[in-house]
């Protein structure tokens, strides 16, 4: 078997593997997440005067459809109504999180790995076509870099939570009788640290920390098997 045949077979096998991996994803179900469904749910909560749940679902919808202008507009409206400060973040986070949906970028990254691998293998067999294959390699690396940037920008959201109860006290210790350090506002976004029994240690964007009842907050990205609220 020649080297050319080896590369061709390898590429075919990997392509078939990718296709199999793609089809291995559970089919869409009514219990899953979709950007329109989350957006409509958030609208319903906003109309119901529950800014915490509204912001939570807007943030989740934004994760699936980062370039949707309606999601951004409604999220801004609800935050303004709840007298919360506008969404901030570094330029890198804002730009990198708007590239495309993370799930689409995942496949871009896989395609980048495929392009880099195939072009590097072919460049050994066809040294005279190194220029074209080099461009293909660079394009593959670019796809991988875009995916990596998006992952870095999305990573902080993995530990973000939204206050879904009104006037949630943040306490000095994970106990109901502990002194209250501050009162968190509904729809305020926090960074989740650790959990202990029914309490979660959170940090605000102002750098303050405290223990809040786990039931009063909801993770933007719920952990597997934790239900729709996310804890």
């Amino acid at each position, binding site marked *: 078997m020649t080297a050319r045949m080896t590369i061709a077979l390898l590429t075919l096998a990997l392509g078939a593997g990718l296709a199999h991996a793609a089809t291995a994803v559970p089919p869409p179900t009514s219990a899953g*997440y*979709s950007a*329109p469904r989350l957006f*409509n749910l958030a609208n319903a909560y906003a109309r119901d005067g529950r800014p915490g749940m509204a912001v939570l679902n807007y943030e989740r919808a934004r994760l699936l459809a980062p370039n949707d202008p309606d999601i951004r507009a409604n999220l801004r409206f609800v935050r303004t109504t709840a007298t919360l400060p506008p969404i901030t973040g570094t330029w890198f986070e804002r730009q990198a999180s708007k590239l495309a949906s993370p799930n689409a970028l995942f496949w871009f990254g896989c395609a980048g790995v495929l392009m880099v691998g195939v072009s590097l293998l072919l460049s*050994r067999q066809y040294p005279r076509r190194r220029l074209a294959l080099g461009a293909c390699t660079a394009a593959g690396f670019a796809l991988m870099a875009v995916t990596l940037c998006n992952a870095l920008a999305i990573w902080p959201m993995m530990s973000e939570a939204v206050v879904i109860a009104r006037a949630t006290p943040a306490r000095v210790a994970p106990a109901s009788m502990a002194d209250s350090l501050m009162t968190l506002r509904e729809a305020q976004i926090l960074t989740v640290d650790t959990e202990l029994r029914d309490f979660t240690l959170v940090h605000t964007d102002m750098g303050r920390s405290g223990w809040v009842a786990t039931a009063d907050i909801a993770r933007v990205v719920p952990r597997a098997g934790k239900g729709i609220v996310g804890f």
Partner: protein
Amino acid sequence: MKLLHPSRLHLQLSVIAALLLAAGAAYGAPSVTQQIEPAEIALGEAAQLTIATLGNTQTPIAPPVIAGLEFVAVGQSSQMESINGQTTSKNSVTYQVIPQRAGIFTIPGLLGGSPPLVLRVLASGVSAASSSPGAFSTLPAAGSAMVASATHLTQDGSAFVRLRLPKHQLYVGESMLVDIQVGLRDGLVATLNGLPSFAGDFFTLNNLSTKPEEAQEIIGGQPFTVLTWHSALAAVKPGTTSLTIDTPLTVRMQTMRPAAANRFRDPALNDVFNDPFFQNFFGGGTTEKEITLTSPPATISVMALPTQNRPEGFTGAVGHFKVSSELSAASTTVGDPLTLRLHVSGAGNFDRVRSAMLGSVDDWKTYPPTATFTAADATGYRGEKVFEQAVIAREPGTKILPGLAFSYFDPDAGRYETALTPPVNVTVMADVAGKAAANSLAQNVGAGTAPAVPFVSPGLRPDHADTGNSVASLVPRYFQPPFLAVPSALALAFIGAWFWLRRREQAANDGDAALQRATAQATATWLAQMDTAAAARDIQVFFSSARSALRQALAARWQVAAQSIGLEDIDAHLGPDGNDVRQLFARADEATYSGSDEDVGDLAHWKQVVLRQLKERPTQ
């Protein structure tokens, strides 16, 4: 020469002696001046006594002991001057003079260097503060000067604790600033075992700082380090109570030998050598003992808030407050939120400062307000509380947001006050989405009921059509291990393929090189045999070796086995250019089978034929 009369001479000598004595006294002995301001105060107020010492003295001058007056040191200063080599120092100590009863008090001149002072104390209720600038009233408005309770040292004189209060009467819920002072005699107090505290349920005290202010004070001629905590005391229930402050301390007890005490005649030396430092130095032992220091009781009367004329919106705020309001914009669109802010600033119990802001208002949808407090001092007694409320206009037109009311109790005036903010005119423009939608939003948002029929909200963009595509998890796929295995497997497969190809090429390169080396070695052997055969005139061996050398070279060139090369292959690969090779193969067959001879000159020709073929580069 005129002689003076003896009596005049005596008089002149007396004057000169008096002048010399006065000059000597002025140079050697310190001069003391004292001043009291004001000279007339009311009972419950305090005056200020300043004692200044001019001259070279290190001995601090203590205030006199006068029944009915208490002297509390509040500060001291030192100043040194050097003129023409003579150094003089000026020390001044300031005391707060607190009368215990009304009357006229005479403060004698100290060291005879200053005239006596007179302090007139009027009975309580007669206000002298207004006519006597500088007096400190014990019934002041918030923020006025503190009056300290009496300073009672412990039995061993090692420490004291005292409470400084601005007044002794307050209302339930009212807060007042207090200073808690703990004086520690240097060297006698080992540690402070806890923060000052008080017992009882009449008051609450704000948290005390772990880093109090520190100052030096001289009491009874001894230096004390005075720690001062500033806090706010809030009355909880009505009644009259005595407030005392407890402070846990560890003091050092001297175990001095009896003979060591009063060993010097000079009291000043005794003071110096009885100091704990010298006691320790000379072998005097110390033991430590934990004690709880208690301040002299301060009687405080807490009055209930009057029930008459109590405003409806009163939430328990007691103090002195000012209010103002602002709106985020003067014009808006139906459905767009505005932020209404109420600023309450001043001094008082801000934890009871609350406001419901606007309740149900026609043409406006209001939301529950939020509050933030910014303290202007460390105790939280002064500051500003800002209430924010989101309001949404329901109808277009020129609308009025009503003014806000805030009620509080003024403890100085003894009555309730209600501060009002002016109403605000707002221009509300119609929204393109329509009036019905705005009404629907305003009715549903905050009412706790979901809309029965989906509508287009003026503030919210409309719902999206569900495409049916969904994902099982919100965790991005590049953070999910099963998906992360895909690019990992790809990368590993490509890396493996890369190394496999590289190894394969390397093995192939290694085989070619070995073959070339073997061919070269075999060719060299055949050439050597040709030379040997030519020298021995062995024609058969010569041509046999020449044919073998050619086969070796042609086999490497044509990538075929050496033994299989025959005349047909030579014809096929070399064509007409292979005549010499073909003839050499024929001669070799002829020499092998017929044994014909050749001369030496022919052999050299055939060797050149072989060498020429060996020099040909193999085709790729």
